[in-house]
């Protein structure tokens, strides 16, 4: 469909479910109340690393109002994990981070359940802890998992340990090219763990049904993986587990990785419900959540680049130590992604980077918003400015000199289709006033670019049911957390079926009824559910045209739907209402049911033939650095993004602005702080700083169009990429203001002041 014909796509209609949410009737997981439900609570390890000598639950069981107390001994002896199958739902033999679940209680009230937790006697034998991902790989470090082998690609005599993931980027001959470079810049960058801090705490509710099936309610981004893993962990047949999604109060990838995300809160709740023979609900306390659920991991990145005098990049080498946490979680995938992205998204003829995902005694890495990307970009884009400074080149000119064009390859991408990178840089320069704006004392200007994956992944389907009044019900496997299901999907279906957006209802995920899906993850909502829903709506439309054609005595090819009427093109008077056709369908095929798929193989073939149409972005900002306090204030912030064709414009902007805010938070203040024993020092919101309105600049968003992606109408994913540039963007502006390069996050007053002092500037 030509762009000019789009009626709805690209506008900003009211979100589905908006009214419920503004009147306080939006139902989130936390709002559930099952009849006769018990309250569950989880006992968590008080040590970051210890052997479990014994667990005595007898006193806890005696507390009046307690129904069951469970430990690992009550669950099947099976483990879970994405790459390494290394984790029990309740710790067996050992605990590996403070927050590791050890036992659980179901009781009449939450107060009783918590009281009972205190009566569980666990005898631990504390072990030395490994907290730094680089140190943890050395022979002297304590071993976290005795029975987990090193990745096959690491030689046994390499003298390395605690590694669960190994990624290697190898292009050309980096060593040789580096030796021939005019200038070599060698740096180290470090980022810290942040928690996604979605506002709605993790919940799980579970109930055994009379027919022997277990129903689980979850506020998880990936209900189908939760079903699969919960069934496996409890020894139930897959078809005896049903997972129902309630609305999510945020997720950001933190709720995205099956049962790993919530540290197995769903199967633990299921276990309690089975043993108690009563429905059970668990609501995590926010501080408990900060120490136990999945996070954006910290990374230590060595990066070295060789350039010619004219600014041409000739080689890069690097090393990544990515903090997986106590279990492999999503650390292998995120660490691999970080390693790849350390190669940058510029022309890079020679490159060698080794990346290690490393076990440490900290909570587990999840696929939090752009897993691996923001960390790598902090290093890559800060480093680009360091190189530009060494060359005496303008940072934007240096970048523009090395940008790829259509048909080129970059690290991890064999062929690019269209490349918007240069245009985003140019627009960002213009919007921020690069080289024009007059900076006052202590002010600086910075720029950073970014990219994100636009590649194939798990497929997914959509079912579009046309009701007899012409309204439509859509079933997809992705949940709504302020993302595509509530915003874009109704628009796409309405666009194709000639109905108002408000006539489309997208149903919450129920694994008994929804098409399978890997979850609302990876910026793939638009690509998977958007593409599938468009095809499903077209399939439904074809069925409608076939039936309407009979009635109107016209060829289906000559029909169109406009304003809920099916009419003969060019003869608008010859028409029948959509509702009439949908009602008449009862006597023909029953119901118009359109089906569509996002076919992963087709996407891959398309990408192979024409190249990847991945999105690019440039952010730019002006900051003011206080030489007295080290405080950094952002005075202006622009975000220029190519996301292909925007589907819901305001929602796309909202995704960009929210993602940028999360990384601006990580840049300026956010981090989970550990003491030397691996105890989280700032679990509650009192101590965990994140951006409030008075800290945030207005993010001035520009959408660059004209670079179509592989999603419907040429859309690209927009949920994660804006997390990529902000940290380096701000660090570069600080460098511009002060001449001081800060290589470790956060760029907090304390760290900035230290940097200034070390450079003799404060």
């Amino acid at each position, binding site marked *: 469909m030509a762009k000019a014909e789009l009626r709805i796509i690209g506008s900003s209609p009211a979100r589905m479910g908006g009214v419920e949410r*503004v009147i306080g009737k939006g139902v989130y997981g936390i709002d559930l109340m099952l009849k006769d439900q018990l309250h569950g609570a989880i006992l968590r390890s008080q040590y970051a690393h210890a052997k479990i000598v014994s667990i005595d639950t007898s006193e806890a069981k005696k507390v009046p109002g307690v129904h069951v107390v469970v430990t690992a001994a009550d669950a099947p002896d099976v483990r879970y994990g994405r790459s390494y199958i290394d984790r029990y739902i309740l710790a067996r033999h050992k605990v590996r981070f403070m927050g590791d679940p050890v036992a659980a209680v179901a009781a009449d009230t939450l107060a009783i359940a918590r009281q009972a937790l205190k009566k569980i006697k666990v005898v631990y034998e504390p072990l030395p802890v490994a907290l730094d991902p680089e140190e943890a790989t050395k022979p002297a470090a304590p071993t976290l998992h005795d029975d987990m082998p090193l990745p096959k690609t690491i030689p046994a005599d390499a003298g390395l340990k605690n590694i669960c993931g190994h990624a290697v980027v190898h292009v050309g001959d980096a060593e040789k090219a580096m030796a021939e470079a005019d200038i070599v810049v060698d740096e180290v960058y470090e980022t810290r763990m942040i928690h996604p801090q979605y506002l709605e705490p993790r919940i799980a509710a579970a109930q055994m049904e009379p027919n022997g099936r277990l129903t689980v309610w979850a506020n998880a981004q990936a209900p189908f993986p939760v079903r699969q893993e919960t069934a496996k962990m409890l020894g139930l047949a897959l078809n005896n587990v049903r997972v129902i999604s309630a609305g999510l109060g945020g997720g950001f990838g933190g709720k995205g990785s099956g049962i790993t995300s919530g540290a197995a809160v769903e199967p633990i709740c299921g276990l309690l419900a089975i043993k108690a023979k009563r429905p059970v609900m668990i609501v995590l306390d926010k501080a408990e959540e900060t120490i136990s659920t999945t996070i954006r991991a910290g990374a230590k990145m060595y990066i070295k680049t060789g350039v010619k005098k004219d600014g041409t990049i000739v080689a890069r080498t690097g090393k990544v130590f990515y903090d997986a946490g106590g279990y492999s979680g999503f650390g292998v995938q995120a660490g691999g992604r970080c390693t790849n992205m350390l190669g940058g998204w510029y022309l890079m003829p020679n490159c060698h980077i080794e990346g290690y995902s490393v076990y440490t005694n900290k909570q587990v890495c999840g696929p939090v918003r752009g897993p691996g990307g923001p960390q790598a970009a902090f290093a890559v884009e800060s480093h680009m400015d360091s190189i530009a400074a060494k060359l005496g080149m303008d940072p934007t000119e240096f970048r523009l000199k090395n940008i790829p064009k259509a048909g080129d390859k970059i690290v991890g991408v064999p062929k690019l289709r269209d490349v918007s990178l240069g245009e985003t840089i140019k627009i960002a320069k213009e919007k921020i006033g690069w080289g024009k704006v007059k900076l006052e004392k202590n002010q600086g200007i910075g720029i950073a670019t970014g990219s994100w994956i636009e590649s194939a992944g798990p497929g997914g389907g959509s079912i579009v049911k046309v009701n007899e009044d012409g309204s439509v019900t859509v079933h997809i496997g992705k949940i709504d957390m302020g993302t595509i299901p509530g915003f874009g999907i109704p628009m796409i279906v309405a666009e194709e079926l000639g109905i108002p957006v408000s006539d489309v209802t997208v149903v919450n995920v129920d694994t008994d009824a929804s098409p399978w899906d890997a979850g609302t993850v990876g910026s793939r909502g638009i690509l998977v559910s958007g593409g599938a829903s468009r095809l499903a709506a077209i399939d439904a439309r074809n069925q409608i045209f076939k039936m309407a054609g009979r009635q109107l005595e016209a060829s289906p090819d000559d029909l169109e739907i406009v304003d809920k009427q099916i009419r003969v093109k060019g003869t608008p008077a010859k028409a029948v209402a959509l509702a009439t056709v949908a009602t008449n369908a009862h006597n023909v095929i029953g119901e118009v049911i359109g089906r569509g798929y996002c076919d992963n193989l087709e996407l891959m073939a398309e990408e192979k033939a024409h190249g990847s149409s991945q999105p690019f972005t440039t952010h730019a900002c002006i900051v003011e650095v206080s030489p007295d306090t080290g405080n950094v204030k952002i005075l202006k912030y622009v975000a220029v993004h190519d996301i292909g064709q925007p589907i819901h414009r305001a929602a796309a*902007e909202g995704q960009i602005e*929210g993602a940028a805010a999360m990384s601006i938070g990580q840049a300026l203040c956010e981090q989970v702080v550990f003491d030397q024993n691996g105890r989280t020092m700032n679990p509650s919101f009192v101590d965990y700083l994140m951006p409030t309105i008075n800290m945030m600049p207005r993010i001035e968003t520009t959408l660059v169009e004209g670079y179509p992606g592989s999603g419907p109408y040429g859309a690209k994913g927009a949920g994660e990429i804006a997390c990529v540039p902000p940290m380096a963007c701000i660090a570069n502006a600080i460098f511009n203001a002060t001449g001081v390069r800060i290589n470790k996050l956060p760029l907090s007053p304390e760290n900035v002041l230290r940097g200034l002092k070390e450079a003799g500037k404060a």
Partner: protein
Amino acid sequence: MSVTINTKINGQSVSANAEASTSLLEFLRDTLEMKGSKLCCNTGECGACTIIYNGKPINSCVTMAADANGAEIVTIEGLANGDKLHPVQQAFIDTGAVQCGYCTPGYIISVKALLDRTTKPTPEDIEEAVSGNICRCTGYNKIVDAIHLAADRIAGRA
């Protein structure tokens, strides 16, 4: 120990028993099953539980339910007039300020309290009024847009 709490919520007299240790948020959500006010940090930091208490916005998670005895309370459930949304509610929808929507009830309450005081809020007024409301989805742009739109509509400027 159980106490009887007599209060007025959204114009309706309410009388119910609750444990003396119950927070006002728990009283609303668990005792009265009014789930509109949201539980998040439970330490008065995030604003998801904001309600209007005797005319002022407060965090109900760090207020004792017993303190509500004799108080007048407005919650998110009490803002719309039948099917007609309060201008702040409508503005949040119209500007795309509702992403996941979990902070939305608390936000709308804080903004309503602000716009009850002034329909020409300065940027400083806005910062002060909602600096205790954390939104993790929007980056605050659309929320600021919603506040201005609601103010303009209430004042008849839009």
